[in-house]
């Protein structure tokens, strides 16, 4: 255990302290750009096949013209002028007519050019994405120091944990922070949401949500008594995702008086390396992140809402959503939808762990019956929550707790003060950080705990857990 400092960003800031524990699990990072290269190679092979066929068709056309000028055929004209004329016309048409070989040859060669251009565009788009990841890594270098750049680059593939890592630099390249526009992105695509929407469009239709009740995975936790228990509950659901991708849980908290409240747990991205041609039934993938960032309808979000309905969440029963990484972004989106009345649930609180802020965060708040507050936990050294490229939002409805880090445990690889930014994104640290927040007497955190208690999320008598998996039909 190591005692490390924490900082609160909110209406009133000040130091707090708490214990943060040691080594934890790593995010899994696989594949990615190889799929792009393979696809481009296939296209280049196809273009070569078109070219070769074009040559073949052209030779055929010339051969047919040779047949039309065949001496025997020409000499026979006087012995059957009508049929000769028909044969000649048919041969010339086969070479030069609308369906003729010579015209077809030119079309095949044009097709080859188009296919090569497609392959080049694919590779260029991939290069653009790599540049975006590079910009993220550069930013991380500033945050973490030169020694962290390697892990930061490794995190590049994992950057799809949340859309901004990939999308925000793309937006910058397209004209967000750099004047002008990028040739690969059409005018009007500037801005995070626009770039995300553009990229999301390459994934095509998402398909319908597939929500499966998994009662075999129901393991009701003890009733939560503090923020650490809430994040612990989220960690328990995240642990299911390895064998049950898309696992989410709806914990129904039953109070002593029988009243019901609900805690919805949304783990992070299951498939961080999904490309349009590798997409499968995983709803929590890169495409979902892009849709999330662009504000597009998202199958995963629709699936979560369906799971909530199937779990019996009533329209007037208070709901708290926890989310790790992408899950936090999804939680914010769902809370924003609830606050605007788009969905029939009374979402009152969001607790995020390692999630970038999203533009939707600004739409929350409000002291009325539909007011939503956000408690955002950020592990110092975890790059993901920083990748929105903005300072923590300072707003009454949002309290950001930044904990850990500071090199408090030098050389402790994987530890809270270690140098592995991927490890620092792990939920284990967030449970510890939540415990630090629970122990703090900072006024903002005291107010948050009081609010959670007032809403009845910390004094339930029992918990009924319902686990679902949310996937999608492959379109």
């Amino acid at each position, binding site marked *: 255990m190591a005692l490390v400092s924490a900082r609160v960003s909110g209406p009133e800031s000040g130091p707090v302290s708490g214990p943060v524990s040691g080594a934890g699990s790593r995010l899994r990072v696989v594949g990615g750009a190889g799929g792009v290269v393979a696809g481009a190679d296939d296209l280049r092979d196809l273009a070569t096949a078109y070219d070769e066929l074009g040559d073949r068709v052209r030779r055929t056309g010339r051969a047919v013209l040779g047949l039309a000028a065949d001496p025997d055929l020409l*000499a026979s004209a006087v012995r059957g002028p*009508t049929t000769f004329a028909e044969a000649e016309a048919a041969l010339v048409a086969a070479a030069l007519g609308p369906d003729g070989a010579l015209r077809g040859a030119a079309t095949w060669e044009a097709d080859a050019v188009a296919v090569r251009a497609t392959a080049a565009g694919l590779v260029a788009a991939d290069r653009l994405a790599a540049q975006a990841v590079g910009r993220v890594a550069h930013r991380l270098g500033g945050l973490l120091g030169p020694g962290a750049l390697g892990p930061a680059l490794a995190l590049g593939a994992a950057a799809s944990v949340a859309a901004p890592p990939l999308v925000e630099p793309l937006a910058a390249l397209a004209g967000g922070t750099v004047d002008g526009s990028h040739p690969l992105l059409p005018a009007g695509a500037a801005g995070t949401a626009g770039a995300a929407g553009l990229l999301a469009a390459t994934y095509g239709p998402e398909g319908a949500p597939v929500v499966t009740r998994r009662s075999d995975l129901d393991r009701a936790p003890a009733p939560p008594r503090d923020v650490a228990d809430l994040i612990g509950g989220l960690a328990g659901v995240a642990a299911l995702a390895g064998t049950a991708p898309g696992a989410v849980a709806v914990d129904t908290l039953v109070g002593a008086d029988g009243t019901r409240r609900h805690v919805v747990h949304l783990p992070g991205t299951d498939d961080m390396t999904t490309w349009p*041609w590798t997409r499968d039934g995983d709803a929590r993938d890169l495409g979902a992140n892009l849709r999330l960032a662009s504000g597009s309808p998202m199958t995963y979000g629709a699936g979560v809402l369906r799971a909530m309905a199937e779990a019996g969440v009533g329209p007037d029963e208070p709901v708290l959503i926890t989310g790790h990484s992408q899950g936090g972004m999804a939680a914010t989106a769902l809370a924003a939808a609830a606050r605007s009345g788009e969905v029939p649930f009374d979402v009152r609180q969001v607790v995020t762990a390692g999630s970038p802020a999203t533009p939707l965060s600004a739409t929350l708040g409000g002291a009325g019956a539909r007011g939503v507050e956000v408690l955002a936990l950020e592990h110092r050294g975890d790059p993901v929550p920083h990748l929105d490229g903005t300072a923590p939002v300072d707003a009454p409805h949002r309290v950001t707790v930044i904990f850990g880090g500071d090199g408090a445990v030098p050389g402790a690889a994987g530890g809270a003060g270690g140098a592995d930014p991927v490890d620092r994104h792990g939920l284990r640290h967030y449970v510890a950080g939540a415990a630090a927040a629970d122990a703090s007497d900072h006024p903002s955190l005291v107010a948050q705990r009081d609010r959670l208690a007032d809403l009845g999320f910390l004094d339930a008598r029992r918990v009924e857990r319902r686990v679902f998996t949310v996937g999608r039909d492959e379109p």
Partner: protein
Amino acid sequence: MATDGDGDGLRGVAAAARALADDLGAGAADVVAAAESVAWEGLAADAARATARAGADRLDRTVRALLDAAAAVDRHADAVGRAGGDGWWPW
């Protein structure tokens, strides 16, 4: 090769046209197979496959044009073989 417009020479022209048609037909099958072997999905891959199928259809029409031409040459050979002419020519 005889150059007097006899039937055998004309049948050879028709056969050559059919051989060219067969060759192109095989090419169409090859290119569609190549397009279908692009092992990923998405808008670009779908477009590539659609282009290949359209090209194959185009090639089929060229093949049919060649076969029509071969048939026309055969009919001409028949006409030449029947009566040394089709009766229209005055001598």
